[in-house]
């Protein structure tokens, strides 16, 4: 399965979550906080903390640890608070 992460093609396995694919690709952070602009990535891993937010196919506020990738998904870093495209 092929997906893009911040414009770069990444291979993903069916059933893999966004967070798993990003970690496997060597990323640890994929969001900036809207206050201090600090990097964030995986924290609770089970959908509780909302820290691992990404933008998937133009829709922000998607929990990377919960969202299972679909072929062709376009994933990108979320910068602070964003409006859906």
């Amino acid at each position, binding site marked *: 399965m092929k997906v893009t992460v911040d414009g770069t093609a990444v291979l993903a396995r069916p059933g893999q979550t966004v967070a798993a694919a990003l970690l496997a690709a060597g990323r640890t952070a994929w969001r900036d906080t*809207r206050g201090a602009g600090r990097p964030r990535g995986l924290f609770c891993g089970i959908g509780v903390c909302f820290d691992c937010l990404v933008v998937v196919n133009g*829709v922000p*506020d998607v929990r990377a640890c919960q969202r299972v990738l679909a072929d062709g998904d376009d994933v990108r870093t979320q910068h*602070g*608070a*964003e*409006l*859906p495209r």
Partner: protein
Amino acid sequence: MVSGLAHPDVVVVGAGIVGAACAEALTAAGLRVLVLDRGPLAAGTTAAGEGNVLVSDKEPGPELALARASRERWPRLLAELDADVEWEEKGGLVVATTPEAVEPLHRFAQAQREVGVDACTLTPAEARALEPHLTPEVTTAVHYVEDAQLNPVLAATTLLAAVRRRGGETRPFVEVSDVDGERKVTGVRTPQGTIPCHAVVNACGPWSGSLTAKAPLPIMPRRGIVLVTAPLPTVVRHKVYDADYVGAVASGDAALQTSGVVESTRAGTVLIGSSRQRVGFTERFEVPVLKALARKAITLFPALAGVPVMRAYGGFRPYAPDHLPVIGEDPRLPGLWHATGHEGAGIGLAAATGLLVADLLTGRTPHVDPEPFRVDRPEVMVA
């Protein structure tokens, strides 16, 4: 904190925004004030409000006069206290989305202009220039530059901090079970004992009707629910509401009324109201109410459809049958003062209400005409 003021001049019951404003004005007048609340400070209706300081939703009359006095006083008061309570002069935008709503809105604004309100009628294009994400369906709008907003909990706790600095005391988690005295007030009764005093201010909001059986008030809870979105970049700049809101506020119907009211907070969330229901003090949430609020918000701002809703919370407005606050001394029990019945406008009206209570209690010339708010009007003296 338990020792504190043994002999206060005034006991204020209720540490919401109205009680805080009364206590602030009374301590500014040199009185020793004790504020009691059965819960924490500013945790009831005050914590459930959006923090509106509005003139836009009021037709000419005594409430508008009080609102304008309060709108003028709030920024001065905050400057005196050197307080940051997220005060924002954001302005209000009342929007019509149907052809039929144009004429009544224009008439409403014209009447307000005649008494001096800054109400500027806009074309749809002008409205969308002020609010770029506003629906293209807008048929007309009125811009009220005076409408403002603050963080009500910060405001109340800041006023109460000023009270403490002036030697007053705030005592949370103390419930007043009754007001003592037969011909006049002699004290308030609490589980921790009686506190002697000669003046009590009832600022219990929706619970003020039953502070004492000696002087019941027909104040009822009118429930409201607010939806809160995830933090967003700036999408909504003003307080924006549908022109049908004024009708919903003025209605005396107990059944559910909803109206689209949308605004941002400084934290980036968007607050979505409003609903009005007289259903007692129920804490139950009904999905149909949440759905109606969501629909109306999207009608005003279609771009909000894809935004996450992260929270819904409810609160109780203190509703008076004639929609006017009750401010003044109770003739049934001299020494008992009421400052209640502000319904959904308590944050906005608090600054003027506190000052008016202090004026009347200390015998100064009142800064606004107190007559329309008097306690012994027939709509209030039902018992």
